[in-house]
């Protein structure tokens, strides 16, 4: 068997395995079974790492990016259609996907350019509130999603002014302050519903109502969440493409140069402010569009959804997955959103658990679970 055929089989096998794992994990309810499945998966991963399989697999993956991406989408579709009539699993999957989009935004800021943002939930919230306010006005809802992103970017351009004047910890404190202010602002603002929040009308695409179930044939009915999951998946795909293209371009190189050494970058003509503003704005845009769709899906939003702790969760997803690593973000978003939903035992201790995991990661694997690779501008091209 040739190497390339082997590579392709490995990828297809992995995708199938991933889909099977996700379906089982989401479907089973018994706590002991879930726990056993997780232990099984953990042992499998550790064993293959010890046998040196993970290195070989990751080489196969990097040689066949296109197939990897396509089969991941296919696997995701299998999982989605498996649960086509179950509301709750679909809601969970859509939540994961929207977290992926928002965290990719943070990754653009933090992972690429090194601009910390502890107000991620606030920008997510700007998107939510944009959807809530514009939802009833008859604005086309795809446009509302885009406007959610634009609003987040505009609000971000206010925050960027103090962020550009500070560095490191001080910039972090500025964003924390902004996040807290944002929530307080929502709570005292009566036109935006105050502490009670606002209802959000559902998505409606060219007369296609997202909030009613889809009758396929007499016996098959799709949950209305299918609409949202599919739209969220499309958003993830577009975000992934954008992130990849940015990373594999001169813009990505400039971002890295700004993060790693501002002085050296300035001496080679790199305009620090320009690239910080671009990455901050793009990142907030992504958080905003994710928020807009999220609000439409939930149908109701309140200021308590956008607390500082939610921003921390977004940042910890980025750190857990690996700075600048897109696949890492996808994996970490899945873990952080799904685990507490499935393992009710840890529900109450989730923040404690997150904290412990964060400390362990920073101590033992600071580059994250799936570290970012060196930049290869053109896949498969090595000069």
């Amino acid at each position, binding site marked *: 068997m040739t190497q390339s055929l082997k590579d392709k089989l490995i990828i297809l096998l992995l995708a199938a395995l991933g889909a099977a794992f996700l379906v089982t994990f989401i479907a089973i309810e018994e706590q002991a079974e879930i726990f056993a499945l997780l232990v099984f998966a953990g042992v499998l991963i550790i064993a293959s790492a010890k046998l040196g399989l993970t290195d070989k697999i990751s080489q196969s993956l990097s040689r066949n990016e296109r197939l990897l991406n396509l089969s991941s989408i296919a696997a995701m579709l299998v999982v989605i259609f498996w649960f086509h009539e179950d509301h709750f699993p679909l809601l969970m999957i859509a939540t994961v996907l929207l977290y992926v989009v928002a965290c990719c935004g943070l990754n653009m800021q933090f992972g690429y350019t090194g601009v910390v943002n502890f107000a991620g939930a606030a920008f997510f919230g700007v998107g939510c509130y944009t959807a809530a306010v514009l939802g009833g006005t008859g604005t086309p809802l795809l446009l509302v999603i885009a406007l959610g992103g634009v609003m987040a970017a505009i609000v971000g351009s206010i925050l960027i002014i103090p962020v550009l004047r500070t560095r490191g910890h001080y910039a972090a404190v500025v964003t924390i302050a902004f996040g807290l202010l944002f929530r307080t602002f929502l709570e005292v603002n009566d036109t935006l519903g105050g502490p009670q929040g606002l209802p959000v009308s559902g998505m409606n695409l060219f007369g296609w109502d997202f909030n009613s179930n889809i009758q396929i044939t007499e016996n098959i009915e799709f949950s209305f969440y299918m609409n949202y999951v599919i739209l969220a998946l499309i958003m993830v795909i577009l975000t992934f493409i*954008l992130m990849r*293209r*940015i990373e594999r*371009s*001169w*813009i990505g*190189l*400039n971002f*890295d*140069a700004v993060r*790693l*050494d501002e*002085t*050296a*970058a*300035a*001496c*080679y*003509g*790199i*305009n620090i402010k320009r690239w910080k503003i*671009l990455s901050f704005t793009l990142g907030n845009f992504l958080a905003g569009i994710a928020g807009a769709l999220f609000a439409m899906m939930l149908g109701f939003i309140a200021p308590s959804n956008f607390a500082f702790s939610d921003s921390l969760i977004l940042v910890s997803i980025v750190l857990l997955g690996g700075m600048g690593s897109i696949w890492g973000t996808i994996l970490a978003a899945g873990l952080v959103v799904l685990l507490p939903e499935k393992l009710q035992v840890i529900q109450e201790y989730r923040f404690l658990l997150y904290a412990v995991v964060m400390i362990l990661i920073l101590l033992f694997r600071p580059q994250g679970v799936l570290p970012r690779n*060196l*930049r*290869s*501008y*053109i896949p498969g*091209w*090595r*000069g």
Partner: protein
Amino acid sequence: MEQQQETVLAFKGLTRRFGGVVALNEFDMELTNGQIVGLIGPNGSGKTTSFNVLTGIYEANGGSIEFLGQDITSWPAQKVYEAGVARTFQRSRLCLELSIFDNIMIGAHKRLNHGFMFNVFKRKALQQQIKENYDEARKLLTIFDPELADKMFEPVGSLRMIDRRRIEICRALISHPRLLLLDEPSAGMTHEETRELMDDILEVREMIDGLSIILVEHEMGMIERVTDKCIVLNFGQKICEGAYREVASNKLVQEAYLGGE
């Protein structure tokens, strides 16, 4: 070879203070086309400070800097680079987690297209530009070390000190500068390595027409071998200027290095 005597760089009364400390005091110097000038002096005498003021990292408190006939005294670092000044740093400042190619491309910044539309949507044209620049970077690096040129996509952090210096110099040269500032290129290297590096630099100067170099260095062998003239700084003041031989026998210079009285 007869050089054209065009002035590339001129400091006039350049002064920089840090609080009460005068790091550069009324520093005058002139550099002509293709010249290599050695900047020497004890630690803290203002050598690196003059680089930092010249490249726009620090503002000058007095005096002026003229580069190719333009007054660049208050220009930001980015603009000084655009005008044709490239530098290396005393403690090598490469991006260690990035590949050799990435690091060299940072130096090529002014020739690359950084437009958002170009980078995100015109992938074909972008990839064409990447490949062209790859070829040039590789050609340049081959002059320094052919073996290194085969490792273009390996992280800089895994390389030896001399290789990092070579890459830093390539990063500076890829921008086609008119003036190259080398800040202690021999720091942390053996005599043999220093000699190798110097040969490379001289070879490159032959290739790039009219490239002037200012070299900050403690390694006197290197200064003697490559410089056309030397400037000695002490406590931010120029105490002597001339060919290496004259400078080395100057009494003031010996005092500055060995202590007076």
